[in-house]
């Protein structure tokens, strides 16, 4: 017999994997659009630290002079992005899945501890159920960023119809910059996400496909669920008012 935890409900897995190609198309077509007017850069005094983007970057990706194509893909796939996002948020809320996702007041301290652990500066990581504090903050932020992309997007897509929204976001030019920064955020997230998924290993990755993870009953790498945050010795017993769980002490799955 194998002990499995049901980690990701089917709906969440669909939303996750649908979002991947859809967001890819949105970012790619967004780049085709951005190329046509690409003024953003990070400057220190007169010294340009980063330019978004150097000509070689566009050339390498072959995205020049494709504004019309970019706009077409962007305004077609916006619908899938919005629909998938609305369904995801709705499902998360109705199913109660949000309890795994929304950070609480402990999440920020946990996130620091997790980061120190990931950097090798701390021996143990705080216990968690599905996502650790850093993950909760990250995944929740990504969801809020998605909402932000839709709002900043519509502020520049329909600045007359939604002029209230455009001015709320600081004007047309500001909204375009915000839309761009959010996109950079996704790219940064994507890189970190991939690194972390690789670090967490196959068992974690495959759970986003299968939904479940096989856990070893007494894996020393998996901190016990009830281990206190303050690094006290593990309590081997079940919590007092633990629900009608099976015999062995509940084990929580590894990273991510």
């Amino acid at each position, binding site marked *: 017999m194998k002990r499995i935890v049901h980690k990701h409900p089917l709906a969440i897995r669909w939303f996750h994997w649908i979002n991947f190609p859809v967001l890819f198309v949105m970012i790619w077509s967004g780049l085709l659009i951005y190329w046509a007017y690409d003024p953003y850069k990070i400057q220190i005094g007169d010294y340009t630290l980063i330019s978004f983007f150097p000509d070689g970057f566009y050339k390498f990706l072959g995205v020049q002079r494709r504004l019309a194509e970019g706009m077409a893909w962007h305004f077609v796939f916006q619908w899938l992005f919005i629909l998938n996002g609305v369904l995801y948020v709705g499902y998360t809320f109705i199913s109660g899945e949000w309890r795994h996702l929304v950070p609480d007041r402990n999440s920020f301290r946990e996130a620091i501890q997790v980061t120190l652990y990931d950097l090798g500066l701390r021996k143990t990581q705080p216990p968690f159920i599905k996502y650790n504090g850093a993950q909760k903050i990250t995944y929740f932020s990504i969801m809020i960023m998605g909402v932000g992309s839709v709002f900043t997007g519509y502020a520049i897509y329909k*600045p*007359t119809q939604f002029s209230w929204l455009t001015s709320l976001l600081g004007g047309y030019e500001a909204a375009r910059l915000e839309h761009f920064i959010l996109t950079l955020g996704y790219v940064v997230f994507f890189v970190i996400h991939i690194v972390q998924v690789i670090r967490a290993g196959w068992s974690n990755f495959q759970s986003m496909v299968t939904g479940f993870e096989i856990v070893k009953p007494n894996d020393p790498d998996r901190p016990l669920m009830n281990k206190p945050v303050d690094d006290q010795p593990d309590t081997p017993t079940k919590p007092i008012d633990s629900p009608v769980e*099976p015999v062995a002490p509940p084990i929580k799955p590894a990273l991510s």
Partner: protein
Amino acid sequence: MSQSAKPKSAEPQLPEDNIPESIARRRMIKAFGWFALASAVPFGVYEWVKNSVGAQGIKRPLRNVLNVNEAIARTYFSDTHLIPTFPVEAAAKQARINGYDGIKSPIPEGWKLQIDRANATPLLLTVDDVKALPKHEIVYEFKCIEGWSQVQHWAGARLSDFMEKYKLGTHSGNVPNPDNTNDLFKYVGLETPDKEYYVGIDIESALHPQTLLAYELNGQPITAPHGAPLRLIIPVKYGVKNLKRIGRMFFADTRPRDFWAERGYDYYVGL
């Protein structure tokens, strides 16, 4: 953070099961099989779009959705929402010039605005005829489809006043009434005198109170590169629809040809 202290909204434990290894393996194979099949869908969609026939510079499926977007906008959005305006001081002293299509030749001598009418001879009008109408100024953020924008100060006659004065845009030849949509033509077409640049505009946007036949920029007569003697200023559209040096105006129920829409851009480009 002990379990008992947690409120009811506390994060629940993940459900667990004990299953035979063979079943776990079978579930895994099944899930990855579906995953592989589903992964083919995005590639299929891409290939389908890529191999579709073209529709004016972009693929037919993309064009179809852009047309649906237009239908949604024209159904649910207001035709009279105003674009925000700015104080005159906010306007750029040097308005940006971006594009010479249709105005590469000199302004024709004895230029007149030609307006084609159903069941009547074309009207030929001068700038003074347009100036005879009430003058309206607008300081607003001009938006280029490329992504840049600039606050600019334009002045001219409302296109709606012009159409009312000359009884244009209706099948009946009466004054256009935005509520009597059956009588209105669906589109206005505009062309430069050399017919090298041309746009089509939905009649609702043409009748928008901020749409001008403009003859002044920053209080001065507009210069040739900005579209002298008369150009369209239509703030509810991207710059591409703001045709310079209007030569001919006509009305139609089908989409007039449109320079940038033929090159893959959305036809409607309503803001």
